[in-house]
């Protein structure tokens, strides 16, 4: 399916391409198809291509000399592109300990949404989430697929010190903090694994289009995984459907 895309110059060395403003997997697949096409076609020109729900930003290393010929090139590329047979996405298993030691907001969450803690955990780890893109912090995954029963507005006063690995819910989104950071989401658990490794040339094991499944683990399992992570001998596991 071909969408009507909007091409704009963002600054001297970047172009923004926008799809209709909705969050859905068809849009995401088309965005990611075009993104891959761009990465495969810009061989001689150095570019950094990032995507969000409905946008692609192409950052060129150098100033764009002729913006209209660049637009034309992009439009032709998109128009002539073939729907790629989608590569089977990876489903990454993300261990999460929902113990109250980590899930400091489980109690208040339970009161506000009138659900038991075990219901919250069950509703949270049941779906297979889609990674739309990585943003906000290095290694922060924007996930789609949170159950409506778990929607809860962000805290009015952000927590200044959310711990690395914290699993949170904010509005209709859920995610994992890849590093210590201020944040306004309700924290319901913690994952012991690294979402960003600065020494790797590919710093994130997961990428846009992949899937995430949360796997509840006990405190003992959490600690043994953490030991593996800290001794650099933990490899994230991907599963098939």
């Amino acid at each position, binding site marked *: 399916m071909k969408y009507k895309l909007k091409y704009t110059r963002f600054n001297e060395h970047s172009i923004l391409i926008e799809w209709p403003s909705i969050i859905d997997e068809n849009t995401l697949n088309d965005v990611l198809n075009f993104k891959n096409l761009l990465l495969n076609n810009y061989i001689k020109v150095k570019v*950094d291509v990032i995507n*969000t729900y409905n946008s*692609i930003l192409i950052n060129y290393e150098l100033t764009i000399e002729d913006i209209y010929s660049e637009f034309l090139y992009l439009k032709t590329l998109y128009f002539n592109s073939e729907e790629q047979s989608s590569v089977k996405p990876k489903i990454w298993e993300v261990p999460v300990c929902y113990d109250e030691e980590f899930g400091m907001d489980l109690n208040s969450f339970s009161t506000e949404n009138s659900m038991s803690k075990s219901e919250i955990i069950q509703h949270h780890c049941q779906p297979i989430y889609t990674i739309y893109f990585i943003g*906000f*912090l290095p290694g922060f995954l*924007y996930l789609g697929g949170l159950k409506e029963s778990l929607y809860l507005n962000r805290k009015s006063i952000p927590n200044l010190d959310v711990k690395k690995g914290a699993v949170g819910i904010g509005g209709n989104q859920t995610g994992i903090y890849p*590093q210590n950071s201020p944040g306004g989401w309700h924290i319901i658990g913690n994952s012991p694994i690294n979402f960003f490794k*600065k020494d790797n040339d590919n710093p994130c094991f997961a990428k846009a289009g992949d899937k995430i499944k949360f796997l509840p683990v006990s405190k003992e399992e959490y600690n043994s995984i953490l030991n593996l992570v800290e001794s650099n001998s933990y490899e994230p596991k991907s599963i098939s459907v």
Partner: protein
Amino acid sequence: MIKVLKSGLFSTIQDKGRFGYGAFGVPKSGAMDFYSAELANTLLGNTINDAVLEITMIGPQLKFDVECLLVITGADMSPSINRKTIQNNKVYRIKKCDTLGFDKLKSGLRAYVAVKGGFKSDMVLGSQSYYQPLTLANKLNNGDTLYLNQSENTFDTYETFSKLKVVDYSSPNIHVFKGPEFERLSCNQKSELTSLESQVTNLYNRMAYQLSPLFDNDLESILTGPVLPGTVQLTPSGKLIVLMRDCQTTGGYPRVLQLTESAINLLSQKKEKDKIVFKLVE
């Protein structure tokens, strides 16, 4: 090596920043006033990738344990070697045991100290630019040690005072393109936004500059989308936030304007209470 006797207010190692890691959520970083950083390297015959020291408002005090060639560009912070005043944009030969110091801030906000061959520090994802937690440090501290890359400190060609176009840091004019959500503003808002005089609030750093006064608007948030250094966001409460070099890669506020690269350089030299006016270019 160089001993940091006093770190100054906020001193960091910077280069061109990180290119190619945006899809992992990694900020671009790099020298705030890239023009001045590049100029410093050019004057020394360095490559534009060589790392420089970005110093902010109150300069550091550095004791050199090594001979080198040095130049300072950007803000005028009354630099001196062994308490003897020196000038910006001029190459000096530093001898062992010399001390570089700074005094009153006379113009701008950020100055760049470059040495021939560049500063040596950890390279993370293709850049030496400080950004925690990618780099261990987020700024210099008293007692730190800086290292230099080996280089031949040939002096001959660099001694001339270069005749440069001097940037007027007091100019309020910040050149902008229309941002992706500019067209959502009403006609009145568009002309007001590109003519009103704003000023820099006390909230300004390498991530963003917040401006005042508030700009009344009823724009809806957007789906989280890509942002760049120089993107001007407009919040529902009316705050105008200009994102700077260490900004996040994505954001959900309407992006009403986009600074040109040279406008980012100029804004980097502004501080609290400085006046700015957005000027549309195209």
